């Protein structure tokens, strides 16, 4: 690596670190924000934990792999929290009308993206990690029983969450806080077709190709293969990785496109109003 490139990389790392620090300061100074990170994943996990206890005795399908619903809800939360992590951290900048200040510093748009993704990872680990610990304590189920494939599932789901988070953030940046609800709700359009709680074969034939175009569908099918058949389906994993490469590239491209668009429209100074 040339000296110039090394200096440039150091500068970028420092600026990404500065933005991450800004959001860690925010979390440190606001216990409701930390509580919010853990609250919903835990509530969801407890709900599906009790549903599991019920189904274990009434459903032979669930009885074959008692952790299937709890694993599904925890992994779904990885996707949801990954997306929400990006969108909420971006919204924090809009709520505080800080984007104008940020972009008169040497901060590059891709450095903002890197900071958003880093914060999303931290927030997801706090939120889902907390819920996973409760699953161990209350339902005596550890998602770690998925073994090493859990890492692959986690990475694929959070990357898909990042891609969607970047797209929703871009729309909020362009259309203002009126589009804020996209950040909270957009991902749920995908839940019924992501095969989270049931196999993709349950879906109508015409919907299955759409479902299979989502990285998450392959992850959840792969999760069930691990839990029911004790095999890691590499074909499903590779499908998820390939789709995620496309999704993330599109997410970044959409964000950068709308960033340029708001510079043309003069919205950076007034964003948040």
């Amino acid at each position: 690596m040339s000296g110039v490139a090394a200096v440039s990389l150091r500068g970028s790392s420092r600026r990404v670190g500065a933005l991450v620090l800004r959001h860690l300061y925010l979390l440190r100074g606001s216990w409701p924000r930390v509580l919010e990170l853990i609250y919903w994943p835990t509530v969801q996990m407890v709900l599906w934990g009790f549903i599991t206890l019920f189904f274990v005795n009434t459903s032979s399908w669930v009885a074959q792999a008692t952790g299937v619903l709890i694993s599904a809800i925890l992994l779904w939360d990885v996707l949801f929290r990954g997306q929400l992590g990006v969108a909420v951290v971006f919204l924090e900048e809009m709520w505080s009308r800080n984007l104008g200040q940020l972009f008169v510093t040497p901060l590059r748009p891709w450095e903002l993206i890197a900071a958003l993704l880093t914060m999303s990872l931290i927030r997801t680990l706090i939120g889902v990690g907390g819920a996973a610990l409760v699953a161990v304590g209350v339902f005596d189920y550890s998602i770690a029983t998925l073994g090493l494939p859990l890492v692959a599932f986690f990475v694929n789901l959070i990357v898909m969450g990042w891609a969607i988070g970047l797209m929703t953030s871009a729309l909020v940046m362009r259309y203002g806080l009126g589009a804020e609800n996209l950040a909270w709700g957009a991902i749920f359009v995908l839940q019924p077709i992501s095969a989270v709680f049931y196999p993709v074969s349950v879906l109508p034939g015409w919907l299955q190709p759409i479902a299979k175009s989502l990285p998450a569908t392959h992850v959840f099918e792969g999760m069930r293969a691990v839990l029911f058949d004790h095999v890691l389906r590499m074909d499903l994993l590779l499908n998820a990785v390939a789709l995620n490469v496309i999704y993330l590239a599109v997410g970044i491209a959409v964000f950068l496109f709308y960033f340029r668009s708001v510079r043309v429209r003069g919205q950076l100074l007034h964003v948040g109003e």
Partner: protein
Amino acid sequence: MLGYASSVSESAIRVGGVSKRFNDVIAVDDVSFEVGRGTTSALLGGNGAGKTTTLAMLLGLLLPDQGLIEIFGVDMVRDRYRVLPRINFSSPYVDLPRRLTVAENLRVYALLYGVRDVAAQIRRLADALDIGELLRRTYGSLSAGQRTRVTIAKALLNDPELLLLDEPTASLDPDTADWVRAYLESYRDRTGATLLLASHNMTEVERMCDLVLMLRSGRLVDRGTPHELLERYGRQNMEEVFIDIARDRRSRGAGAKRAST
């Protein structure tokens, strides 16, 4: 082609033929000017005259439809990241994160600007701007005057060679406003920095500025030193000059027009 000041030998800012339109509204219309290094200049004009749009384009937050913007010889449209570390900006209309303490805000921005000894720089600015006691307080809990001092501290973190100030003394009491002006003047004198401010405060402009750029409806309609403008319009103070220009009264007929209204 630049329309002004071939006499300005070493420019901090060069703006040539810049225009910006938002749908049907022409916000800035073929504006050209230069600002010399180490000087203080003002962009003046009524509401909607194009001051904030011009500032935003100088900062690279807004892309012009056409024209040239150079800061220290660097094209701001194509290569802004080369020069952004050397400039800074302060505006009462663009916040800092309110839930962060003043120290946290300053630390984050110092890191963004690549300040080497962050702690020492914050200490130095805290002493200079008398915000030491505010460092542990959240930005959102500060009064307007305290916030202004903090945002100026933020704007000085990287020891900028060019400081763009949007209404630097808006909503400040006269004492604090005077203190801020004195501090900015001392900063300019000490460092040789260039200051460009958008202001509605004519006393401030008369006191601080070497060059006044008058905007109306997006066009640069007049320019000169405060003294030149006072003479040209036959007025006693810049406020009267401002009103003349804002109401499109030309210099020689200004008095007569005022009498007839």
